[in-house]
């Protein structure tokens, strides 16, 4: 195994934020174009899981002519197994707020929103305090930018950016058709940058230290560090900042309990990797450096040999059955069929071959579902069923 994939810890995100005023004024002294170039050359990709290049997102939105634009911080952290955004917002909120204001400056937006997950209601008082302080400073320094918090109500789907806009507009949280994309038509039909909490925290690092410092972390295609929410059968659950590109084997060596059977990378919508594939799996975005490369929003769930993979899958599917918005056929009906299907196989009401029909169904869901939710159900389903087929049957 190549040494370059060893696990490397990093420490940027939670490092003190006392210099936010400095980072803010320094950034405002540069031209928007410079800031965009800085972001692009850092190769930062969205940390929510989808991995869209952040610099490009800002650039596209900056290029659209419109008097009204918005910056939205997606804090609807709903993926099972992730809890990093909560920590960022409680530990270093000013980093996020600063990046939002800089983004506003770059794209020409005067209003920002934090879409806060319903269950994170308890963060509200502290966050509001931080926002008042931040806005006060902005006013003092003639920065025309306001930030408001919009409370979500607990639907997983509202973390999907266009469903989030619908929710903010007072409508039912359902994903929109794309195109148009948020850079052209987002919240209220206006050009909008929507970034994950962690992405904004990283842009703070980049504006503070310059792109190179960030770029030097990680590997090709997957630059920088990332927060990982480690949970499950591990002696040390928690949040860790690690460089991207590590192999899963190294990760398990660090966090496993010596009996790790499989790791779910990327939460319920991610992939389950069995022990035999730990060596050939890297954690990062596209590009095959070794074997498979798995993107993640940061959720890493470890399972040891005491766990039934049927129960794991059953649990995920229960989640999706309930959290699908119900709008499109493949996702709404597909999730119900998958859940009922594996139960029927387990009970012997359908024979084992029915699992193949369900695998085909997940293929259709991946191809045809309207948004990322329905498309990604296939990930956990097929990776669990293909690797632990016997556990589904017996």
């Amino acid at each position: 195994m190549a040494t370059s994939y060893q696990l490397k810890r990093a420490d940027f995100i939670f490092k003190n934020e006392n210099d936010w005023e400095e980072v803010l004024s320094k950034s405002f002294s540069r031209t928007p174009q410079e800031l965009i170039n800085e972001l692009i050359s850092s190769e930062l990709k969205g940390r929510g899981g989808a991995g869209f290049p952040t610099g490009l997102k800002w650039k596209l939105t900056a290029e659209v002519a419109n008097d009204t634009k918005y910056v939205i911080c997606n804090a609807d952290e709903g993926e099972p197994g992730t809890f990093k955004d909560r920590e960022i917002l409680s530990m270093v909120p000013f980093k996020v707020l600063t990046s939002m204001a800089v983004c506003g400056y770059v794209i020409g937006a005067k209003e920002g929103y934090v879409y806060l997950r319903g269950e994170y209601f308890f963060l509200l008082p502290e966050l509001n305090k931080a926002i008042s302080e931040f806005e006060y400073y902005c006013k003092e320094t003639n920065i025309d930018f306001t930030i408001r918090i919009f409370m979500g109500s607990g639907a997983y789907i509202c973390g999907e950016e266009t469903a989030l806009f619908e929710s903010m507009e007072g409508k039912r949280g359902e994903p929109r058709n794309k195109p148009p994309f948020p850079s052209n038509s987002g919240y209220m039909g206006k050009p909008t940058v929507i970034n994950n909490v962690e992405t904004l925290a990283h842009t703070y690092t980049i504006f503070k230290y310059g792109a190179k410092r960030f770029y030097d972390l990680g590997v090709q295609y997957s630059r920088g560090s990332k927060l990982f929410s480690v949970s499950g059968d591990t002696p040390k659950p928690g949040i860790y900042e690690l460089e991207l590109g590590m192999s899963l084997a190294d990760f398990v060596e660090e966090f496993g309990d010596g009996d790790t059977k499989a790791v779910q990378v990327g939460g319920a919508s991610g992939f389950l990797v069995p022990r035999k594939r730990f060596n050939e799996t890297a954690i990062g975005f596209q590009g095959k450096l070794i074997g498979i490369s798995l993107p993640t929003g940061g959720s890493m769930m470890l399972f040891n040999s005491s766990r039934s993979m049927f129960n794991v899958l059953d649990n995920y599917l229960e989640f999706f059955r309930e959290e699908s918005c119900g709008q499109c056929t493949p996702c709404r009906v597909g999730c119900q069929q998958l859940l009922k299907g594996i139960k029927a196989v387990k009970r012997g009401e359908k024979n084992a071959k029915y699992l193949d029909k369900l695998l085909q169904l997940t293929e259709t869901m991946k191809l045809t579902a309207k948004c990322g939710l329905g498309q990604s159900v296939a990930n956990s389903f097929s990776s669990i069923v293909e690797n632990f087929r016997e556990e589904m049957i017996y």
Partner: protein
Amino acid sequence: MAKTIKISINGIFVEVEPGTTILNAAQQAGILIPTLCYHKDLCIAGNCRVCVVEIAGQKRLAAACATPCEEEMEIFTNSLNVHHSRKHIIELLLSEHNADCTSCYKNGSCELQKLASDYKILKQDFIPLVPFKNYTIDKLSPAIIKDDSKCIRCQRCVRTCEELQGVNALTVAYKGDQMKITTFFEKSINSVVCSTCGQCINHCPTGALVEKNYIEKVWDAIADKTKHVIVQTAPAVRVGLGEELGLKPGSRVTGKMVAALKRLGFDAVMDTDFTADLTIMEEGTELLMRLKGTLVDHDPEVKLPMATSCSPGWIKYIEHMYPEYLGHLSTCKSPQQMFGALAKTYYAKARNLDPETIVSVSVMPCTAKKFEANRTEMSDSGYRDVDYVLTTRELAIMIKQAGLDFMKMEDAHFDRLMGESTGAGVIFGATGGVMEAALRTVYELVTGWEVPFNNLNITPVRGMEGVKETTVKIENPLEEWVFLDGVELKCAVAHGLVNAKRVMDSVRSGESDYHFIEIMACPGGCLGGGGQPIPTSPEIRRKRAEAIYAEDEGMPLRKSHLNPEVIKIYKDFLEHPLGEKSHHLLHTHYTERERF
């Protein structure tokens, strides 16, 4: 004009306008893509995913209805990926659908059934989901039946209720497997703001929303020798019925329809157009009285603008949504109810029949008429004024059941006494028609001259614009109406309740100063009614409207006050408009309703 976009679909090169969806581009290239949640009347939802297509270079399939063409796109509408996915999606929909097709009212006209047939879904592997859900059928409305077990969640009804009607009685609730189309607090459709217009039925692809049908009841009545069964037909039925029986939209089948009704066994076939003409006499007089009350007597109790009251969907809507404006509604009953009240009084007397034995049936382009006929106050004859209301669709079903070869029917004429009509009565079926008919008569009664429009065609109130306005200046009136000299009569016409809302809001805010407003609940007026043939589309409604106006032009008489049977009924029975008998039989009152 912007530059066109060049794409290829299944290897065929097509040039389209920027913004054209793949679905429409394919149509241009002569390629049909199946759809379910798509409807020409509605915004794009892209939720059923039946219309998915493959685009070269893209990992995922795209919904053809929701994806605009881009330069050099290479699209495949029937690749193996597309074929398998589409089949899967249809299977999924069927697994969630109560596919008891042979006992479904929509058997044979269900879009999901057609897709299942086109794609030959021969065995259903997926687990049927209907037994796991606790469905109940909502049958409490006299007009609409809602069966959630047949719902495929395409949301066409929800979009219809919101976009075309602005009512929002139907909405989406819950998520995931619990997601369903329902009403406020899941109440019966009969106890919410639903106007019973039936547009949701017209736009539902399956049997989830259907009219409550009275076909068997009518067959029973016809077969009952002790009953005298009469039928009236609304103006819009004659330009719609043909579509259900194999003819093109816009076919006029008045004579064949009358012949068919006679062959079905009705004892008398008469015309709602007659009471449409009568409505003009009553409502036109009422308008003049209101103008006098305001302009001469300055009576604050007299309300202007006066709004028409022919459309029962509109009536129920205003009762829910603008109850403070009920005094603005004309007190005239709708033509259907005027006919009903006269059938068991005037007609019974003239034919020497015991009204007890008369069964009064109406054929309407409308489902709200079923609700209207059921209103408790609609019994001024001493009996239920109208016993059964059939939609255009139900009549077509009866014609098929009776084995009538509709195309071979010889044209027949309506029966006398309440069967004569004018072109003014016919145009009630189109948006603007009541306004036009009223102006033709009112103007002439007041001035002694024909309304100053070429060939009586008041074109500003015709057409499919959502809200139409016109002003008619009254000059040199007859002595009796001298107070109207120089008055500019301001009129507005709206169709589709979403446009009714626009007009009512402008009245409420004081932005407008209309004297007379015509409102029809359905898009295009009655010809686009909730009881008309399915499918409907802007194009189809335009065709039906053309047929209505052609019917008008072909009539020897085109002004309501010239209808000889109308003249006769005032001479023999009613005496004069707004008279004692009229007041009792032809006018009504309205009720405020809850707004949820």
